[in-house]
């Protein structure tokens, strides 16, 4: 029997736990709030209670002292918010393993609540709260910490067999933290690929009702086993029962991506972002997906959000600024008048910010000049583009050690867009670069040469290409040729597109009275993709079509 009345009536201001040895930190933007929480902690017996009003203050204080308790408000003025502070403290390992971090917030808006939940603090305390409530909460959290101390240690050391033993024992003895243990077991079984144990545990939990974490456990298993269809099915059913399961949207989007269903994946991720937009990695995934789909407006929006969310945190990097500038440059091309000017101005502003912020980094100065040149090229401001390019080249001459594969790729792209195509190719081929490059970097160059046009144009060419494929499938070769040629006007060097045209022309040759014209189309298409060499993924298809055309030519002669 729970003797709860005595516990409550024993007086909320006194706690059964002694905090005499404990230190705490209170972070709140408002002095009044800060003071009142501080007073509560002092009354509860904390020997030391520090306070600060900013996120930066929290990080600095945690460098100086390892606190037992941090009570941090979500809103902390203009710098980092509580969620970012927690992520940063974890990354910097500034929290003791048994420290308790509580995010305090008066806000119940979903983006904030989700952002906080997704950073997994030890607890979330919504304002207002009284000293009695705080006291109970702390008592409970420290008791939980005590009960789970061995499990948490095993978890941190990834000692899965010990963790499993401890959790199973706790569950068998009907311990108070059985749910925590079951969730830890799900993660353990996923990490050790113990599929039958995982299935047994989750199915047992799901007998009576739908439970999000158990359903997610099953979905993650399918995902790890690369059973995309099963994973998609399970995630869709989670979202039916739990429409606010933000993790399910992320996982579903990645499964759909694996299946090549990029548009659907983007829609799903958009739902996730609507629920919980304050997570930088989710916004970055959105940038990548919308890029894939040629949705430049979404890419810009997500890129700007990702930048905003990492700004003033340790994860802020100049790369995010450059990403935004490149996206804005691509987006501006599709716009006119005031909108175009706004995008261009935003891009220039981001460039000026990044160069001011990282003024001591040579590399950033070079990248800034290159990025600026590309921005001007996209606008057709050739003189400005050339001036920025020359600045970058001069900087590189001064410090040749900066010629890393990344920078050389960028330099080549910039040269290319400034109309110096030959120089770009020569640079990429001559610099003994290929040996230093990773497969991804090499692919990035191929992709660029294949289609050195803005994202919006790429998307239009892609859409025409799929129309052409439809006509091809219906054996309407004349229409297919017409549409492929229209696409090639937008993106003349795209290998897939050129090969589709050639293949259609070959089909048409069989029935066409004008075989010569069709042969000419093939030869022109091959000429446009002379950059496709052995290491290109379209090389074997090109060879096969070339052989066919050569044979046909011979036969007809």
């Amino acid at each position, binding site marked *: 029997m*729970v003797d*709860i009345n005595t516990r*409550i009536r024993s007086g909320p201001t006194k706690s059964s736990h002694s905090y005499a040895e404990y230190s705490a930190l209170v972070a709140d933007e408002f002095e009044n709030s800060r003071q009142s929480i501080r007073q509560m902690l002092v009354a509860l017996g904390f020997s030391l209670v520090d306070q600060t009003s900013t996120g930066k203050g929290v990080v600095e204080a945690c460098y100086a002292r390892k606190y037992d308790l941090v009570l941090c408000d979500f809103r902390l003025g203009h710098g980092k918010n509580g969620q970012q502070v927690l992520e940063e403290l974890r990354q910097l390992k500034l929290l003791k393993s048994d420290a308790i971090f509580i995010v305090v917030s008066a806000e*119940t*808006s979903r983006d904030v609540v989700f952002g906080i939940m997704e950073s997994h603090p030890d607890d979330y305390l919504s*304002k*207002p709260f*009284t000293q*009695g409530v705080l006291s109970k909460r702390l008592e409970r959290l420290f008791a939980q910490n005590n009960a789970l101390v061995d499990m948490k240690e095993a978890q941190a050391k990834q000692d899965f067999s010990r963790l499993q033993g401890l959790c199973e024992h706790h569950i068998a003895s009907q311990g108070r933290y059985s749910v925590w243990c079951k969730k830890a077991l799900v993660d353990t079984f996923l990490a050790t690929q113990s599929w039958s144990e995982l299935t047994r545990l989750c199915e047992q939990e799901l007998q009576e*009702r739908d439970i999000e974490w158990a359903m997610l456990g099953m979905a993650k298993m399918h995902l790890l086993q690369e059973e995309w269809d099963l994973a998609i099915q399970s995630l869709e059913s989670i979202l039916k029962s739990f429409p606010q399961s933000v993790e399910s949207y992320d996982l579903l989007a990645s499964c759909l991506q694996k299946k090549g269903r990029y548009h659907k994946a983007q829609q799903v991720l958009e739902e996730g972002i609507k629920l919980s937009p304050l997570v930088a990695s989710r916004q970055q995934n959105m940038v990548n997906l919308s890029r894939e789909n040629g949705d430049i407006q979404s890419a810009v929006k997500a890129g700007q959000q990702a930048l905003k969310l990492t700004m003033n945190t340790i994860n802020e990097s100049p790369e995010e600024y450059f990403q935004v500038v490149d996206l804005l440059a691509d987006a501006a091309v599709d716009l006119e008048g005031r909108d175009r000017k706004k995008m261009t101005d935003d891009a220039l502003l981001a460039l000026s910010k990044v160069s001011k912020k990282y003024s001591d980094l040579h590399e950033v100065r070079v990248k800034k000049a290159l990025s600026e040149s590309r921005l001007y090229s996209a606008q057709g401001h050739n003189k400005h583009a050339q001036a920025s390019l020359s600045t970058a080249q001069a900087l590189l001459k001064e410090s040749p050690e900066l010629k890393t594969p990344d920078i050389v790729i960028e330099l080549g792209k910039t040269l290319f867009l400034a109309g110096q195509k030959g120089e770009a190719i020569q640079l990429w081929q001559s610099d003994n670069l290929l040996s230093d490059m990773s497969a991804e970097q090499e692919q990035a160059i191929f992709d660029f040469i294949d289609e050195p046009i803005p994202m919006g144009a790429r998307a239009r060419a892609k859409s025409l290409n799929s129309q052409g494929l439809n006509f091809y499938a219906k054996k309407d070769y004349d229409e297919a040729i017409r549409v492929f040629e229209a696409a090639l006007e937008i993106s003349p060097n795209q290998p897939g597109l050129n090969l589709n045209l050639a293949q259609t022309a070959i089909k048409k040759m069989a029935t066409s009275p004008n075989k010569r014209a069709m042969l000419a189309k093939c030869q022109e298409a091959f000429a446009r993709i002379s950059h496709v060499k052995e290491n290109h993924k379209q090389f074997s298809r090109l060879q096969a079509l070339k052989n066919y055309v050569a044979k046909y030519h011979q036969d007809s002669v």
Partner: protein
Amino acid sequence: MSSFMKNDFHHVMIASMNDMKQSVNLLQHTLEKIPLGDTEKSEEESDLTSIHYEVSRMQNSIGQLHNLYLLEKNQLSFQLTDAYLLELIEEQVIAHDVLCRRVGVTINLVAKHDISSYLDVNLLSHVLDIAIVNAIRYSKDTVQIDLQKTQQGTSIIIDDNGRGYPEERLEHFSEIIKGQGFSGLTNQMLAWYYCYLVASMHKSREQQGWVRLSNESALGGSRFEIFLP
């Protein structure tokens, strides 16, 4: 209203509500610190009691308005987690301990066992807060809270020993949950409706949560019952 305000009224609402919350919190904190008077109530003391009661009510009203607004905008967060009900109830009782002592009401928890349930902690705590403040207001001197576990789910029952709900109030509530009778809506009725909405957001397969008001209190007054599947 300028077009800026129209387009961004969401931010206006959120900023105002957060500010109201902040200031009511401070008021409440100040009230908690004022020492309780002797058993004999001075005029000042009884003024303080009504201020304290009104501040608690205001706190709930602001929270309720905020959440209803977010619900309307389809932006209310709803996250189910496993939680122990006695823990939640205990917190609410503690939160109102000073108020209880001021008005001379004792809250008894008669549940024998704690029950773990799958629920949205923030929303359910808020509902309990509303129901408990109301029970404190209308009870003579005792409020009793019980938990009942059935096959379908869990009920939390809050009884008081006041005069019970007037019949017409019970009728009005049953009309409102049928989606009728919104005219002449009082804030009190809105609060019950809000509790009902929160309960009904909790679903499990075919089951759905509900709120029932009645005069079946074990103490002879009114009863508030919330069921979660």
